[in-house]
């Protein structure tokens, strides 16, 4: 718990760093709600493209960036190591806080969209809340873990931008490679049956698995010490 406190305080004591996350969330809600006014098919497109494809990844992207202060994950963990923390523990703490915060904010974004963007053809509110909340929660977590991996690459952790791009490009494919990225599985959870060859329940499990794999990889890379 001691280790989790430092990255957590970095977020809560500099709330301005989360302003970009709030901007993406609000923009996502506004666009999806306005699409709902144009009918069910426009709403579906907005959910897949804007909520799942843009607002959610950018929300996780900005959360990870804010948590790491725009630095490499290794440099952020070095701060804790200088106070006596083990490098592995310090990396785990950063990844855990990033994943948790992005999951909660992603879930909240999903719930907000479910409540505000409704059409006469929408399923019952409870069903929508569960579906979008789940997609936001699991998608936010998987994206945050992925961006933590990206944060270990390049100067100032600029690999975050690279993996965002790769997810945008690679995650749109419906083949086996597309299934390696969160994007396709978030779309699947939102009801896009063509996004992956798997049912949406499998996509939920795959997102959890991706979160674990990316999280472990980020921890391993982030624990490498550098001057």
């Amino acid at each position, binding site marked *: 718990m*001691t*280790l989790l*406190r*430092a*990255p957590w*305080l*970095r977020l809560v*004591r*500099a709330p301005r760093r989360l302003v970009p996350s709030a901007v993406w969330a609000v923009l996502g809600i506004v666009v999806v709600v306005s699409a709902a006014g144009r009918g069910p098919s426009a709403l579906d497109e907005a959910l897949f493209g804007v909520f799942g494809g843009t607002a959610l990844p950018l929300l996780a992207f900005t959360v990870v960036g804010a948590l790491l*202060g725009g630095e490499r994950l290794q*440099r*952020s963990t*070095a*701060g*804790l*190591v*200088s*106070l*006596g*923390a*083990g*490098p*592995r*523990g310090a990396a785990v703490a950063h990844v855990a806080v990033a994943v948790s915060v992005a999951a909660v904010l992603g879930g909240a974004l999903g719930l907000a969209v479910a409540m505000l963007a409704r059409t006469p053809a929408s399923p019952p509110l409870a069903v929508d809340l569960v579906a979008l909340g789940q997609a936001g929660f699991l998608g936010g977590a998987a994206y945050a873990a992925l961006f933590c991996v990206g944060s270990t690459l390049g100067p100032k952790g600029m690999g975050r931008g690279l993996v965002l791009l790769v997810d945008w490009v690679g995650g749109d494919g419906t083949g086996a490679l597309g299934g390696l990225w969160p994007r396709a599985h978030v779309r699947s959870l939102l009801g896009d049956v063509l996004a992956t060859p798997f049912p949406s329940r499998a996509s939920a499990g795959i997102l959890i698995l991706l979160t674990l794999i990316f999280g472990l990889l980020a921890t391993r890379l982030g*624990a490498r*010490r*550098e*001057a």
Partner: protein
Amino acid sequence: MKVEVLALRARMPRGGLELRNVSLVVEGGVTAILGTEGDGTGVLLAAMAGVARVRSGSVRVGGRPAGDGALTCGVAYIPRRPVVPEALRVEEALAFAGALRGGESAAPRARLELLGLEALAPRRIGTLAESELRAVLLAEALTSPGVAVLLVEEPLAAVDPRAMGALVPLLRARGGAGVTVILTTASPRDAAAVADQIWPLHGGVLASPRGSREEAAEGALGAVGQARLRVVVRDPRAFVRTLVEDPLLLDVELRGGAVVVGGPNVETLALAVARASAATKLDVEELGVAGDVPERYAMSPGRPVGWQG
């Protein structure tokens, strides 16, 4: 805790000078690595902390490879530009480190008071100047019962002036209490003031250690009438014209584009060079202590080597 460096070749991850076949074993007491950052002192300390890129050889701390995760709670490493979570307040950082390092630490404010830093307790780390942050980290390391090895770059330079008075006795006390204190310094005088053993490092090569503090002080500062300094400036002739008028110097000569001055001791020479630098408005680009060990010291702005004023 024993620090063993064996046939080490290492450099910083971003490149730069490489240490060449450096070996030393240190256990307890205060050891100074004497030389500039350009000589590789920072790389050697970083290698002991496990953050330098080791090409060959080995560095072991307490029998484990340097940088091993199990060592971080007992090894305090304070580089020139330390990284600490900037959202924490100073007192939180000390409490945090106390919890991680283990042992019964005093209250954070009491620990800061030892170095006269108690006013910094409520400040956020991110608002501290680098010299203040280094002083806080020194206070943390010097007062933590969990620290068995203290690696610190230039503890008597670029540190908050409030902490200066108490630093030397505290460093010596910790070394005397069995903590392995290894510091780097470009100042022979600082090294002699604090260290039990001094290892000169020049151009990535470690010379033989000087044993006692007295021996080290004599070797570093030079016996009366024997000290010579080599000074590199952009206009050596103008520099010589000013130096020859200094009554304290025994001889001044121009050798290979550098100015070589002789005098009673290094302190006097350094003062004379500083005065000449101020009079001619010429920056001293390089300053060398002539002795049995070929040492070179870069001039730090406003603070000549071997001179404390």
